[in-house]
């Protein structure tokens, strides 16, 4: 048996108690939608009414999926754009 096999999977590290729970809590809090104020609901209502009117006129929902995709990508911040680019294929590191 080699010395490596004797050591096995032992690691000289300890995990402070509660660390994983703290990570889970922070991740879930980060993604929880913020409570909407009254003016947020008003804005959403106005937008929905406008969208309905425009949809009826057939001018709002274009079937140009590529354009939509580009617009959605451009609306992301730099970090998220970089993340999508990194995970879109297998880079060699």
């Amino acid at each position: 048996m080699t010395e490596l096999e004797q050591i096995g999977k032992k690691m000289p590290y300890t995990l402070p108690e509660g660390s994983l729970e703290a990570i889970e809590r922070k991740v879930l809090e980060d993604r929880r939608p913020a409570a909407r104020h009254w003016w947020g609901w008003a804005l959403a209502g106005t937008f929905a009414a406008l969208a309905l009117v425009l949809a009826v006129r057939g001018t709002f929902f274009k079937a140009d999926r590529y354009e939509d995709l580009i617009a959605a990508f451009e609306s992301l911040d730099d970090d998220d754009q970089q993340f999508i680019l990194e995970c879109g294929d297998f880079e060699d590191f």
Partner: protein
Amino acid sequence: MQDRDEQILDALRLDQSRGMALLMESYAEPVYWHVRRLLVGHEDTQDAVQETFIRIYRAIGTFRQESRLSTWVYRIATNEALRLLRKRRDDIPLDGSGIFEKEADFWTDWSDKDAIRLQKAILSLPRKQQLAFNLRWYDEMDYEAIARICGGSAKSAKANYHIAKEKIIKYIKEND
């Protein structure tokens, strides 16, 4: 794990928060140790793991099941750890022992000399060999999965693992 992944994906489809909680229940600990072996210090690891799951949460809708959930999660975690290492590169010595001495913190067990020697040996390896060794030795992944996480082919993952293992055995012997 495959069945568990199916459960997680089903839960994510029905309720993203609940699905994410299940995903973290399954993966937070193995991902933590994977990242810790690369970064050494607890606090950096905690930050990287947190960022990993935030990125997963943002992108979970884009997961198309072309790869296993586990390899996708590990790939994101690995990228996050490597991003931190790239940021650090300027102010640490390249030698693996130096990295360990510099980054080891309060949550390091200095009494376990053998385990320290093994980590120093791993940290002295080129990054691809380090990753191939860690994912095979500690996480017991197959070469196909390692290739998906690190890039390259299953054959090169296998070669990297065996070269790494030989170098580690030599390092341990020489630093007895």
